[in-house]
């Protein structure tokens, strides 16, 4: 089966000399829910910009559902729906008109564009706002409007550049459900996000990009399997002034009645609880300190940074 997206040796150097992409290779299969992760300035938005023609590539090849963008970009664009990071619609235009007009740019007859606009505005809870000008919408509504606009031509590949940035938790969850629904219906989704919890709960595959290079490309599951320790926060009924004696768990005081402990992969939690019992401590609640993928992400970026530094030292020598 043809890949939804196939990128090979893609490079981008901006006019100011900044090398945003250094020959990346990436394949996203049809039907995938794919996360593109990376710190600010890593090259995520440049990659997306190239896919939707807002950034011109310096070198390399990009195919969207088998269509080379150098050969037939308009055909490739028909497959893509893009939800950018920044709001980019006419603030004075009505919500309904924004979506219908976008359909027109894709050559959709007016009745069909209106029908689709109604369908997606309803799905995204914006139908009641259809006659309001877009500037009157809240931040979350504006983001949903951009999703409705991107879907009006029913693309096979939906690209979302940090879609839930600045969106409250409840709305974020409802957007996740919506994205899962359209992915289940067959739309391939590529997502960039800073919320690694988002990538972990939504995506099957992930690529981590840093300083213009893809430093990891695998399934989320296999990535998480490599994680060899997990940090927990435990709340106690007792209060204490210093860390209790818990050999092998590196306990750290969070506050007077909470501890942070590190559990090695494969170690049964029963052992930890036995030690707590021996210390006479009573556990009130327990939770993960942070998202597991986040830990992996940070450690990978640190490793890449060290590698870059040692490479540059070797070159200097």
């Amino acid at each position, binding site marked *: 089966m043809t890949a939804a997206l196939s990128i090979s040796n893609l490079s981008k150097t901006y006019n100011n000399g900044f090398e945003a992409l250094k020959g990346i290779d990436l394949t996203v299969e049809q039907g995938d829910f794919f996360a593109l992760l990376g710190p600010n300035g890593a090259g995520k938005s440049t990659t997306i910009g190239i896919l939707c023609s807002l950034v011109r590539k310096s070198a390399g090849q990009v195919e969207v559902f088998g269509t080379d963008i150098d050969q037939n970009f308009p055909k490739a664009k028909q497959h893509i729906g893009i939800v950018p990071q920044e709001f980019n619609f006419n603030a004075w235009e009505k919500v309904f008109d924004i979506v219908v007009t976008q359909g027109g740019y*894709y050559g959709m007859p007016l009745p069909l564009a209106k029908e689709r606009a109604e369908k997606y505005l309803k799905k995204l809870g914006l139908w009641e706002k259809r006659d309001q000008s877009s500037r009157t919408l809240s931040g979350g509504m504006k983001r949903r409007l951009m999703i409705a606009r991107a879907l009006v031509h029913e693309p096979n590949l939906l690209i979302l550049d940090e879609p839930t940035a600045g969106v409250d938790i409840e709305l974020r969850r409802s957007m996740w459900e919506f994205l899962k629904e359209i992915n289940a219906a067959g739309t391939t989704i590529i997502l960039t996000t800073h919320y690694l919890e988002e990538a972990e709960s939504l995506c099957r595959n992930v690529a981590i990009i840093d300083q213009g290079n893809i430093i990891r490309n695998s399934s989320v599951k296999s990535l998480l399997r490599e994680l060899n320790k997990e940090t927990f926060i435990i709340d106690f009924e007792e209060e204490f002034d210093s860390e209790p004696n818990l050999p092998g768990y590196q306990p750290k005081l969070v506050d007077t009645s909470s501890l942070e402990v590190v559990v090695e992969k494969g170690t049964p939690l029963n052992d930890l609880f036995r030690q707590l019992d021996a210390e006479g401590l009573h556990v009130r609640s327990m939770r993960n300190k942070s998202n597991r993928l986040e830990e992996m992400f940070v450690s990978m970026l640190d490793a890449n940074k060290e590698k870059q530094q040692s490479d540059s030292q070797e070159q200097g020598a």
Partner: protein
Amino acid sequence: MKAAEQLIALQTMTIRETRRFLRIWTQTLLPPVITMVLYFVIFGSLIGSRIGQMDGFNYADFVAPGLIMMAVITNSYSNVVSSFFGHKFQRHIEEILVSPTPNYIILAGFVSGGMARGLLVGLFVTITSVFFTDFQIQHPLIVLITVLLTSALFSVAGLINAVFAKTFDDISIVPTFILTPLTYLGGVFYSISLLSDFWQTVSQANPILYMVNAFRYGFLGISDINVTAALVIIFLFTLLLIVVALHLLKTGKNLRA
């Protein structure tokens, strides 16, 4: 993108552009009509009666075609320059750029909006002029060709200006410092036969002179220059600017990183 789909994209852009200037009609359609009424009152009734005849016509009749043309030029240009720059400034130009709409349709879409406004204002000003003048249209086809070409030319020019513009100041520099002086010196208010040979020659480098004279010929049957040559020159200028505009859209100047 199939031809029928391109036509839909063009229709979408034309409707959007037309809706934009109709929505703000007090800023786009009303002011030129008021300005023209003032011109006719001052140059027609007050000063015009003292000037007497120009090339065999009373002064109000003589300036009327130039004033109509001036309104068409200004409105065609300012519609596209402000709309395209607004698209860039608010970044909703990206809505069009990410779509499969080809560059020539993007150009045609913005130009159609500029022409719609230019021609509508031209029509309103012509209707207004009927109350102050007694001219009759001598060559309707020449009037039509000249006004269509001129409106298209300045719509394309407006787009080129907007592509280069980075601030709102940049979209007012050309109209203020280039377009207005060229229009006033383009024979709207006088026949260049009144000028010395040297200034007549200099005036011929002004493209607006050809538009005003071709248009005046269509209305009154008089012109300072050869009308066929004028139409060819306007056509060539339009063609040249279309090529430049398409090149800018293709290279993505100030539009694509």
